[in-house]
Each structure stands twice: as structure tokens, then as C-alpha cells.
């Protein structure tokens, strides 16, 4: 409905009203004019809007989701239509139509609320599911992290244990070697030379004068030497017999060799492999002291066990 229309119909009503006062005869005409005005009056914009809104909303979700509100809107529109039927395009009709349109939109919005709440319920379920899945995932991650940590700790422990074991073994070996050296030092003079470890046993301890048979005490000492040498490990052993410079060189060499052989065979008897030990008689060729004094000669009468170490 245009503004033009509204003005002209309002004018018509006023005009008719004046006519009523002028002549009662024209009252019939007045009624006719009024009814014409009503029938002919186009519905106001408010009513058109309300109808359009209602048509749209009533066919939408409000029908199912907000039936009560939609019914309120329907009644509201009904009042506007009724007013339009009775009074035509009156301010009251416009007010009622204006209100009806808003009631209709309200029903639509109410349906929107219900729909959103339903969506929300579904989404809440999804959220709970997703949260549980997240928790599961986090737990799984933590588990695998923990397992990895445990595994690495175990590995560390194992390697630590291995190291520990190795260290202990090494320490024991060192201790054993030290003990062997110490026990050797008790019975003999032990010297490290470039040719190996040289164990020097005094001839007085080992043999009676001019004899090559080991004295009982010598056997004991050599048994200890054998144990120490076995503990240490070795490549080869050379048993050297030495004498002082008294007597003939041939005799001395023969005696020194015989004594070295005695020592060798005793050591073999104590478990030294025979192919790794040999004996040699050097006579008085390699003195370690002067042969002019008794003490010097005593020092020269000796057996040296040369142990070449394992490389």
C-alpha cells in the first residue's frame, strides 16, 4: 500500500464523516462508501509484512519446534486481520499487524533457540566423546613415554651393570696380579726389565752346594712362583741358571743348566705348559756382583726366571 493510497482513503473517510453531519439522507451512501472504503482499502504495509512473515515462519521449523509461540503469532495476526476487516487500514490495524509480525518473528526465534539447544546437546555428546578420546590418547602417549623411559633406564642399568661387572673383573685381576707380585716379592727379588719380569731366586735358597736338586723350601717357593706367573699370564718363560766364578767354567755351565732344568721341571709340574718354558745354563758369564767377596759370590749364585709378558 502506498502513502498515496493511505492519504486518499483517509480523506474519503473524513469526507464521508462530514457528509453524515450534513445530511441524514445521505447516510445510506455513507454506509456504502465505508464498506467500499474497507473492501477497496489495500492492507497496510504492517499487515502485508505480518502475513508474509507468518507464511514464511509457519512453514519453517517453528511449526514443529515452537508450536505454542506460532499459535500465539497466529492469533495475533488474526486480531490484525479482524481489525482490518472491521476498521480497514486504521492505526489500530497497523499496530496489531506490527505486533503480529513481531510475535511471528518471536516464534521463529524460539524455534531457533530450541534447534540450537538440540544441536548443543548433540555437540555436547560429541565433546564428551572427543574429550574421552583425548584423555585416552594422552594416557597412551604417557604410557609409551613411560615405557620408553623405563626401557632406557633398564638399558642404562644393564650397561651400568655390565660396566660394573667389567670394572670388578678388572679390579679383581689387578688385585690378583698385585697379590701375585707381592707373594713373589716375598720369596724372590722381582724386577721389571725390558726382556720381561725377572724373578731372581738366590741359589742358597734353592740348592745345596754343588747340587742341582731343589731343596724342600725351594719347592714351596717355586710353587708360589708358578701360581703367581699363571695368575699374571705370560707369553714365554726362560729359566736361567747362574753360578759364581769359582771352579771350571764347563762345570759351572753344566751345573747352572742342571739347576735351571730342575726349576723348569718343577714349574712344569705346577702347571706351566712345557712348550712355553725353557731352561738355559749361563754359568758365571753374567754376574750381578763382584766374585771377589763372599756376599758378591752368593748374589751371583742364582736362578733367574724371565717371564715375557702377554702383549
Amino acid at each position, binding site marked *: 500500500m502506498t502513502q498515496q493510497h493511505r492519504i486518499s482513503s483517509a480523506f474519503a473517510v473524513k469526507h464521508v464523516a462530514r457528509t453524515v453531519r450534513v445530511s441524514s439522507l445521505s447516510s445510506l451512501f455513507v454506509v456504502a462508501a465505508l464498506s467500499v472504503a474497507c473492501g477497496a482499502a489495500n492492507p497496510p504495509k504492517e499487515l502485508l509484512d505480518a502475513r508474509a512473515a507468518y507464511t514464511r515462519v509457519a512453514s519453517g521449523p517453528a511449526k514443529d519446534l515452537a508450536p505454542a509461540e506460532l499459535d500465539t503469532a497466529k492469533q495475533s495476526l488474526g486480531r490484525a486481520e479482524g481489525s482490518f476487516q472491521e476498521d480497514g487500514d486504521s492505526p*489500530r490495524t497497523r499496530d496489531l499487524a506490527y505486533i503480529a509480525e513481531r510475535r511471528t518473528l*518471536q516464534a521463529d526465534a524460539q524455534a531457533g533457540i530450541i534447534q*540450537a539447544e538440540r544441536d*548443543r546437546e548433540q*555437540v555436547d555428546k560429541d565433546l564428551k566423546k*572427543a574429550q574421552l578420546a583425548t584423555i585416552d590418547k594422552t594416557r597412551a602417549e604417557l604410557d609409551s613415554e613411560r615405557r620408553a623411559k623405563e626401557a632406557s633406564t633398564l638399558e642404562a642399568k644393564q650397561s651400568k651393570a655390565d660396566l660394573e661387572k667389567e670394572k670388578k673383573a678388572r679390579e679383581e685381576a689387578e688385585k690378583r696380579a698385585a697379590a701375585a707380585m707381592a707373594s713373589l716379592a716375598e720369596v724372590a727379588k722381582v724386577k721389571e726389565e725390558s726382556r720381561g719380569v725377572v724373578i731372581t731366586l738366590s741359589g742358597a735358597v734353592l740348592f745345596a752346594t754343588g747340587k742341582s736338586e731343589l731343596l724342600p723350601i725351594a719347592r714351596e717357593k717355586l710353587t708360589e712362583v708358578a701360581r703367581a706367573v699363571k695368575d699374571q699370564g705370560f707369553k714365554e718363560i726362560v729359566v736361567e741358571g747362574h753360578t759364581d766364578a769359582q771352579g771350571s767354567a764347563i762345570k759351572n755351565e753344566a751345573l747352572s743348566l742342571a739347576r735351571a732344568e730342575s726349576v723348569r721341571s718343577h714349574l712344569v709340574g705346577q702347571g706351566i705348559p712345557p712348550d712355553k718354558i725353557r731352561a738355559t745354563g749361563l754359568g758365571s758369564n753374567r754376574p750381578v756382583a763382584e766374585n771377589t767377596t763372599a756376599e758378591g759370590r752368593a748374589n751371583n749364585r742364582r736362578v733367574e726366571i724371565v717371564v715375557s709378558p702377554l702383549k
Partner: protein
Amino acid sequence: MSKPVISASWGAVGLLLIGCGGAAVPQDQLSTAQAALKGAEVAGAAEDPKAALHLKLAREGLDRAKALISDDRNEEAASAIDRAQADADLAIVLSKEARAKKEAADTREQVEELKSRIVK
């Protein structure tokens, strides 16, 4: 003046009052509509475009109604108040709808975020 005459003239006065002075001040209607407007403001109608439009219409309608009342145009004021009431009511429901939709959307976003994290 006889008694009937007096009562008749009083009656005329009464009629005049109704006719000329028009309707009484629609104070109750105004209060109710003002409460609805307040409710729409509290509901956050200003934050949703659709609701904000009707909040504005309601506010303007009530301002107009007050002006009309001070001009003694109470009937027109009542009409403006009726409309303002409808706008305020609508604004409330529209802001509720907007909030409900936003909450659903926010939750959905949260779900999507969680899901994307699970996939990773």
C-alpha cells in the same frame, strides 16, 4: 435546574472527558514495556544485529510514547507502547537465540579442535 438536568450535564462532562481528554495515561503499559526494554538490554540484545534493531525500535517507541504522554496524546502513546513492547519482547528472544547458537557453535569448535588434536 432540575435534578435530571444536573445529572445530564455531569454525564456530558464525563463524556467530554473521555472524548476530548482521550484515554488515561497508559502508565502500567509504559512500566511493563520499560521493564521489557530493560530485559532486552540485560539479555545482551545490543550484541546481536537482529536483536539490536528491535531494541532500538523499542527504545525509540518508548521515547516517542513519553513525548506523546506529555502532549496529552495518550491514545497514540498507548499505540507506540504496544509496538515497543512487541519489539522489546522480540529483542529478548532474538538475543537468547543468538546466544544459544553461539554456545552451540563454540562447543562445536571445541570438538573440532579436540578431534584435530587426536588425529595428529
